[in-house]
Each structure stands twice: as structure tokens, then as C-alpha cells.
């Protein structure tokens, strides 16, 4: 769909970048004290000052005008779904131009506006418009940006659309971040995607099931604790600990007895975390098993601090 001239004119109201490619307008105001720079830094700044202005930029920069930006964003908001999709159409892959700097900023400013309106319908409409574009053929960098903005303004209504990206090698991280930010409805998406995920997508899913403390995922996480990838194993054990699953005590103890190194440290942390969760849930006997094991096995001077931590925990668990 072609972008309307009206929308283009509104987007043009967004701030101009200065010669440092920032919104700080330092050269216009002369407030950036270059004399503070030393040596090479000072020389670099002098070079930048001499540099030609970015093509297409006005000779004189205006200060960033809050009222003008907000008025333009409010007008864009009045344009509804068409304006949102128009902004998205103006986004491009990161390239060596400033072609999408203004729509990029405008879309985020619009996300902030719909969150501020206290109008749930407006926020949902904005989020659904963004989510409707996740399945298309747009560049991955644009889709990642839409995920990021859904992490700001999205709600449970966009969780299924984000969930579909969880097995995409390039998009699973931004999608997972957005889902964890949204929280509501996220766990179902992670659970559904896990059987079909591999590599870093699988790791992201396992970890975030732990972040969400999803008790329904205990069996899947216990299976992941035996994964061939050490990061996935560690993430699974930590996730089980964060959930506070008493049934995973033997698995955690086994993980904590890994050979000295990073994995042993991380799994020991998971044991202490699980013990704390169990104490908080009143399951002191199960917590004591973990503490006792750590107290009795960390006999080397190099792990005395773990033994001491376990002893403190054991005292608290009694």
C-alpha cells in the first residue's frame, strides 16, 4: 500500500539528526564542550565538525521540539491502522542511509502514546496491527523491530503471533523477549514451540520457561536437563529451581556435582536457589537435602564459601 503524502508530512515532523547522527543538536547550540576531549578524541571531534552535513538535512538544526513531535504523533494516531501500516511500510533494513530513522522513531513514539492514553482498545489495535505484519515477507531486521515494539506496547492478544517466531533462528530472541515482557499468555507459546525448537531457539525457550516459572513445564525441563548442550542443561536446571520443583531435587544434586568449572558453579547456584524456594514454600525437609549435600561435598578449600552458604541455609531451614 503506498504511503500517503499526509503521513509522510507528519513523519517529517520528527527530529532531524545532527552531524553526530544524534538528536542532541550539539553543534547548533554550541553546548558540547569539545575542549573536554583529549588527544585523538579531540581531533576526531574537530574532523566531525568539518564534515559535510548529512545529505537532505537542513543547514540549521532546530532544537528537539517536544510539542511538535507529540502533535504529529497524535495526528498519526488519528489515522488508525492505515497509518500504523504506513509507518511499517517506511521501515527498511539497516542501511547506510537515514532512510527510516524518522518512521523508526515515530513508530516507537506512537507505541508510547497508545500506552499513555489509558485506552485499552487503542493499545490493542496498535499491537494487533504490528502483529499482523509478523508473518509477512518483510526483512528480518524490520520484523525484529516490530517484536521489540510489541515488547513495549503488546499484550496477550499478540502472544500467538510472536509464538510463531520462536523456532526462527533469527527472530526467536526478539520474539522471546517480547513474550517475556508481555508475560500474559507467553508460557503457552513457549511450551508449544519447545518440541520443534533446536539450538539457540531451544535455549531461549527453556530459559524463559524458567523466567516465567512455568510449573506446567516441569517434565519438559527435566528432559532438557539432559540435553547435549551445556547451556541448555544449565538453563533447564535453573528453570526447575526457579519454579521451586521439589521433585527435581535429585536432578539438581546430580547437576551440581559436575566437574569443577562454570557448569558446577551455575548448578550449585541452582541448588541454593531451589532450596530457598522450597524453604519459602514450607518444604524444609527437601531444602535440607540440598543444603546437606552441598555442605558435605564442598570440602575443598576452594569451595568453602559454598559450604558456608549451605550451612547458613541449613540453619535457616531448621
Amino acid at each position: 500500500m503506498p504511503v500517503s503524502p499526509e503521513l509522510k508530512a507528519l513523519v517529517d515532523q520528527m527530529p532531524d539528526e545532527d552531524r553526530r547522527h544524534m538528536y542532541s543538536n550539539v553543534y547548533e547550540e554550541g553546548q558540547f564542550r569539545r575542549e573536554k576531549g583529549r588527544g585523538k578524541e579531540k581531533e576526531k571531534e574537530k574532523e566531525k565538525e568539518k564534515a559535510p552535513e548529512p545529505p537532505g538535512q537542513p543547514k540549521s538544526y532546530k532544537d528537539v521540539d517536544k510539542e511538535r513531535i507529540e502533535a504529529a504523533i497524535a495526528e498519526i494516531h488519528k489515522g488508525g491502522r492505515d497509518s500504523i501500516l504506513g509507518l511499517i511500510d517506511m521501515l527498511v533494513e539497516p542501511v547506510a542511509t537515514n532512510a527510516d530513522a524518522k518512521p523508526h522513531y515515530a513508530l516507537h513514539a506512537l507505541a508510547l502514546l497508545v500506552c499513555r492514553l489509558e485506552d485499552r482498545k487503542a493499545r490493542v489495535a496498535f499491537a494487533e496491527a504490528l502483529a499482523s505484519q509478523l508473518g509477512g515477507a518483510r526483512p528480518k531486521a524490520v520484523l525484529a523491530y516490530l517484536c521489540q515494539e510489541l515488547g513495549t506496547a503488546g499484550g496477550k492478544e499478540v502472544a500467538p503471533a510472536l509464538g510463531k517466531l520462536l523456532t526462527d533462528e533469527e527472530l526467536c530472541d526478539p520474539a522471546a523477549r517480547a513474550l517475556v515482557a508481555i508475560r500474559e499468555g507467553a508460557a503457552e507459546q513457549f511450551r508449544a514451540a519447545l518440541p520443534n525448537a533446536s539450538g539457540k531457539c531451544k535455549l531461549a525457550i527453556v530459559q524463559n520457561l524458567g523466567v516465567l516459572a512455568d510449573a506446567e513445564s516441569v517434565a519438559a525441563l527435566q528432559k532438557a536437563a539432559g540435553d547435549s548442550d551445556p547451556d541448555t542443561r544449565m538453563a533447564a536446571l535453573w528453570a526447575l529451581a526457579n519454579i521451586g520443583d521439589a521433585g527435581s531435587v535429585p536432578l539438581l544434586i546430580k547437576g551440581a556435582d559436575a566437574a569443577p568449572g562454570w557448569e558446577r558453579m551455575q548448578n550449585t547456584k541452582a541448588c541454593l536457589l531451589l532450596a530457598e524456594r522450597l524453604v519459602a514454600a514450607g518444604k524444609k525437609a527437601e531444602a535440607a537435602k540440598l543444603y546437606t549435600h552441598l555442605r558435605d561435598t564442598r570440602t575443598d578449600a576452594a569451595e568453602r564459601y559454598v559450604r558456608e552458604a549451605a550451612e547458613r541455609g541449613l540453619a535457616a531451614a531448621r
Partner: protein
Amino acid sequence: MDKKELTRRGFLAGSAAAMGLAIVPRNVLGGEGATPPSDTLGGALIGAGGRGPGTFNELGRSSSGKKHEVRRLATCDVRYKDRADNKTTYVDFRRVLERSDIDVVAIATPPHWHALISIAAMEAGKDVLCEKPMTRFVAEGRAVVEAQKRYGRIFQVGTFGRYGASKDKGNVQRHKAFMSGLIKTTDMVYHARGGFKVKEWSGMVVAPPQPVPPNLDWDLYCGPSPLRPYHPHRVGGTHRGYWDYEGGGLADMGQHYLDAFCWIYGRENTAPVEIEAYAPPAHPEATGLWGWVELRYADGLLLVLESGEWGKPYDRAKTKGLNLDAALGEEGKKKLAELPDPEPLVEFGDAVKTRKQGEGNSAEGFHRTVCILHLANIAIRLGRKIRFDPVKEQAIGDDEAQRLVNQPMRAPWHL
């Protein structure tokens, strides 16, 4: 690797033996007037650029004026791909923390790594001196506090305003009055203006991708933050201009400016409850302009941060100092006089040696200081007033604010 070879005593003994007939420094052999090897701390520096060497030099800080001996056994930086030998020079901090001959760690990476490496170091049994700002968002700070408690380690942030402030008698009285709860309400207005380097440490809004330098592990640099296309402005001191790594000059310089404020006015166990900012709509990735932020505490204290670099000057409230006598009243003054003075703050090196935990090395106090700046940045980024629960450390009735209080991380990194 044989763990026995990695103990500090074993390492030093082995080093001395390996040196054979070479000249052995007195501080290695020990003896009168010199630090014996068992008293020399094994140190590591993680993040070797910028403030790195300076932070490492602070590891031995002592109130006696004579620094404790710290030997640098490892230096780690994600820009060391071309020189790492995994013996003294590293790219991956995890390999450094696996060494049991390292007692203390100086962390001078960009702030998006501060919390995670601090926590990991304490999980490895190390004591930690971390550069400011302590964290990148609120929930990270709580996780550091919990790790310090869990492992009983020494933790400090490389900002020392509270040390100087705590030597002033008047400040000690104010600190006692607030921390003891003798002052329950106040109409004090504390105004911090300028010095936040807002424009100097803004981010680029157009940063075309560039090839990753061969010596840089870009994935590890990004760590818990999104794996963005590389641009040199995101690395080095200019990292401050990106929300992925820090919170602009406000978060960076603010921890210095407010360290003494928090101690003097007893903000060590609490946080502002209402925060409002005057700023243009924030950019999604680059930090940028703001005018001022008002942060009100539950006891009425109003903290105003003003950049002086954008927009109309702040004019909503006038600076108002604390009249301690009036605030306490006669009864309060008597009670205050009966309270013991707080123990002197313990310098990092002394705390490592004595294992003394106190206000000088309480992760909680440093966390509460940097929380002010994180909350200010949330109000700037959202463009509206937010409310915050200082006990639960959660935004009240505000999903979008809460998403910035506790931000997602890229796997495998998590709190």
C-alpha cells in the same frame, strides 16, 4: 585442571619455585615490612578499557592509607581475541572466574554486564569491586543484593562519595535521624543540576552496520542485550548512549552524584514512590534529551534532577534544605543524642581482609542509589508519571513501566 594447583597459596608457592634463582620480590617471600604471600590477594580485571586499570587499583583500598597488595593474575576483555592465551589474558570472563587462585575481581565492563558478572563472581567465591553504575535496571540490583547475601561476599561499587560524606559530623547526624526513623516526614527539596553529560553521551539514531573488528567477540560484548548489527559507537565510552548497555549520562554520572545523598539522607533501604519527567518522546535505542525529573519519596522528600541541557528550566519547587533541629523537635533531639554513631564505612581492601560487612560494602545501599536513576530513566522513556513500590520493587499498576523495571535478557544470560 587440578584444583590443588589453583589455590592461592599453591599458586604463589609454585610461582616462586618456578622462578628458581631469579630475584624474588619481598612481597612474594614475605618478611618484616613486606606483605607475605598468603596476605597478597589474587586479582582479576574484567573489562580492561577506560576505567579498568583505575578500578583494579582500587581493589587494595584501605582506611590505613597503605593499600593491600593485589597481584593481577588475569585480565579479560572481549576485545582480546587476538591476544588471549587463557592463562593471563582472556576473552571470556567465565574462564577467569573458574580460577580458584583469584580472590578479588574488578569489573569495568559496560554496565549491561555489571550485574551478571558481579553475581557470577560471587557465585565463584570472589569479592567484587564493580564500576558505576552498579546495574542497568532495577531487578538486576535486587539479584546482586541476593547473591551477596547468599554467598557472603564483599561487594562495592567504584564510587566513594559516601566515604567522604560519612566523615562529616553533621552528615552523620542526618544519616542517623533518617535511618532510625526519627524523621518520619520532611518537606526537603534536594535539587541536583547539571553534570549529567546528556548531549555528550547520547546515542546515534542512524548507525549503519559495520564489519565487526577481528579482535572483538561481538556476541559476548552484547551478552544479555539484543544482538544488534555492529557499530563502533556502541563500543568503548560511547556505549553510554544506548539503552541496551546503559542509561545515558544520567545513569552513569548519577551514581557518583547521589551516592553521598543516599547515605546522608538515609535512602539506603527505600526508593522514590512517584516519578515524573519532562522530556521529549524517547528514542527506542538511543539515549537522548531530557529536561528534569522529579522523584518523591514516601516521607515527602523531593529529589529533583535537572539536566540543564534541554527545554525550559525547572520551576515547580524551590530547593529547601533540612533543618534537623526543627525536624526532630526536643524529644527527637534527645533520642538522636542517645543513638550510637554508625560504624565507620569499611574500605574494600579492609573488608576483604576482615570479612566485615557494613554500610560501605552493602550492595543494598548502592542498589538503592542507582535505582533512583533507573526510575528516572523509566519516566523519561515512557513520558508519564509512574508510581513505584519500594518494598516489592515493582511499578504500581503500570505494565509498561514494569517491563523496564525487570527487562528480558538474551539467553543464556539471566538473573
